[in-house]
């Protein structure tokens, strides 16, 4: 009994200690955001802000011109949610098709899909931009959101790999129960891949939140800008950068991502136990 407690304590000390080590840069970022902007570099080796100020947050929150930072957060949130819905629906459907259904051309399309991941975006960017320009989709979220409803190779592949770990006997049992193909997808597979769907949700959220290039290319009006674009505007290549405000708003924009992760990580690890699958 005692040995068990000691073991637990040692575990927590090691895990927590290592977390602090990994998190030192993050802690530094948060602490610096409470320092006066001019002191951030002068006192970089000290974690404690002296004096402790909130002015960076006030200044950063004001945003630019007529748009407060809240606008940028709202825009980003809309963007993220629309992409998230798209990914969850389309990727799970497509992945089920690739992983469970036997049809002619499956290997071909799968190879094509993986290939699209291997070409750097920089070289397809211009032609794609022209396509969206022709569709008259510029300066709107459409070029950024609509493709999400046609699947994303990374998540499709991820879900395929998870579906393939699920025994086929379950499908057969469902067929005997009278399910059709869609039923197998919806009733059997979807609940069982909750951890992978949660992973998809987390990644999508964070990648979209962090996406810089897409918004830079397709959003022109400042009223539509996202957080990632706004953060860059605290920096200047010619005059003085407002590091304080940039750090402060970086911290603010981390909070939603942090919360989403904290909520969804439970499904990553608990999905299977709640689904009631036993051997």
């Amino acid at each position, binding site marked *: 009994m005692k040995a068990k407690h000691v073991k637990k304590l040692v575990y927590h000390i090691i895990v927590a200690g290592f977390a602090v080590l990994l998190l030192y840069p993050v802690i530094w970022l948060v602490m610096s955001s409470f320092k006066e902007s*001019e002191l*951030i*570099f*002068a006192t*970089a080796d000290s974690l404690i802000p002296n004096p402790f100020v909130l002015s960076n947050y006030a200044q950063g929150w004001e945003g*630019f*011109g*007529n748009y407060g930072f809240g606008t940028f957060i709202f*825009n980003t949130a*809309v963007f993220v949610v*629309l992409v998230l819905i798209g990914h969850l*629906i*389309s990727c799970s*459907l497509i992945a089920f098709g690739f992983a469970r259904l036997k049809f002619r051309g499956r290997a071909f399309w799968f190879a094509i899909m993986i290939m699209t991941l291997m070409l750097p975006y920089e070289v397809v*960017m*211009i032609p794609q*931009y*022209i396509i969206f*320009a022709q*569709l*008259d989709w*510029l*300066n*709107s*979220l*459409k070029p950024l*959101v*609509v493709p999400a*409803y*046609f699947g994303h190779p990374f998540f499709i592949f991820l879900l395929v790999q998870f579906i393939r770990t699920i025994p086929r006997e379950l499908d057969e049992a469902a067929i005997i129960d*009278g*399910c*059709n193909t*869609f*039923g197998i997808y*919806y009733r059997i597979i979807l609940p069982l891949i909750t951890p992978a769907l949660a992973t998809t949700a987390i990644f999508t959220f964070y990648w979209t939140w962090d996406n*810089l*290039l897409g918004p*830079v*290319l397709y959003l*022109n*009006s*400042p*009223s*539509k800008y996202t957080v990632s*674009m706004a953060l*860059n*505007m*605290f*920096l*200047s*290549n*010619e*005059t*003085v*950068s*407002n*590091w304080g*405000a940039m750090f402060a708003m970086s911290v603010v924009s981390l909070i939603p991502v942090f919360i989403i992760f904290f909520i969804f990580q439970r499904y990553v690890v608990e999905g299977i136990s709640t689904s009631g699958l036993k051997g």
Partner: protein
Amino acid sequence: MKKSLFVLLGIMMTLWLAACSGDDSSEDATSDVDDDATEDTADDAATSDGDVTLRIAWWGEQTRNDYTLEVIELFEENNPGITLEPEYASWDDYWQKLAPQAAANELPDIIAMDLSYLSQYANNNQLADLTPFFDNQIDLTHISEDIVNGGAVEEGVYGFNIGVNAVGLHYNQELLKEVGIDEIPADWTWDDYIEMSNNAVDNDVYFDTGFQPDVFFNFYLRQHGQRLYAEDGSGLGYDDDQLFVDFFTIVRDQVEKEASPTPDYLAQLAGPEEDPTVKGEGIGVFQWSNQFVGLEQISDYEFEIAPMPGPNAEDGLFLKPSMFFSISENSEQKEAAAQFIDFFVNDLEANKLILGERGVPVNSEINEALLDEVSDSQAKVFEYIAWAEENSTEMGAPDPAGAGEIISALDNLSEQVSYGEISPEDAAEHFRNQAEGILGN
């Protein structure tokens, strides 16, 4: 029962997915509304009662974005019927955006342009020639010809110069005295520079923080009657590689005797805030005049501006356009765009908002009127530019297309020289080969 429900769901999904590829989906209503509205007004504008909407793009941070929006407001008040839609982004993001817009013929009407990109965009018919607007929409009464020609590419003027810069040494007078130098005379030479550097080294401080290769090598070449690029952009503008060797030998020797920081030390710095000169561990910085205000702002020390070392500093020095406004070739509202440029450059109230933040104003009258308005640091810059105007020569042709690649090659070689990886002689030869290769084809 359940079965049919699933089928229905499947069909709905397919339909809905198909609907997404149509041109109007309701999912981004927030962005759609004003989007379509602006397009409508823009289309109407060309035909009907003279209401015009222009897109204007620039790079900048908080301060610049805020005052530029105020200038735009002021302009709209004075010019009812013209609406400007601002599009601003950080420097990196801005150029990232502009390239595909150019490729898709979607450039904004008014574009902030930098000297290093001017030729690239002008040569490819992306920008409109501004000469037809001179003395019509754009009043040139108080703007010198040299300044206007700063935006000349071949036959036309493709960028309107909205501010000027000049290089100089921004130095800490107090520290200079501490190392035993009373002042930097206006007619100092490279030999004086080396001498003064020795003083600094003896007192364990840096004299400067090195030279941005393309800027200062070009200055050095001009002092010797040559220039970095040939006037027609077909190759390098100097024949004698000895000049390359001489300049980069100075650079290397300065690093070796620790009058300038080593390149690996400089690479460690997180930002300008950690610069030795800013922290009082170096006497000065060789840089553009628009960086002076920022230097004083982040440093606890006070700075003065000294001209560049001679001989023939006058031939070396030129007024560099700090920024241009260009009008895109695909703009349907070029006159209105030119009207805005005129307002930006010639309106006193507008310039009271701008306060020389984009470089010292090009309009000489405004320049004088602003002297009382600007900060002490800014006043020093104005003063230096006024002096430089008398003591400089014409800039000549702008950087040719391909300059970006040449600058990158030069930076690379200069870095290797400072690291002691190659000799200035070898670097000179490599540079010539690479540059001729780039410009030759």
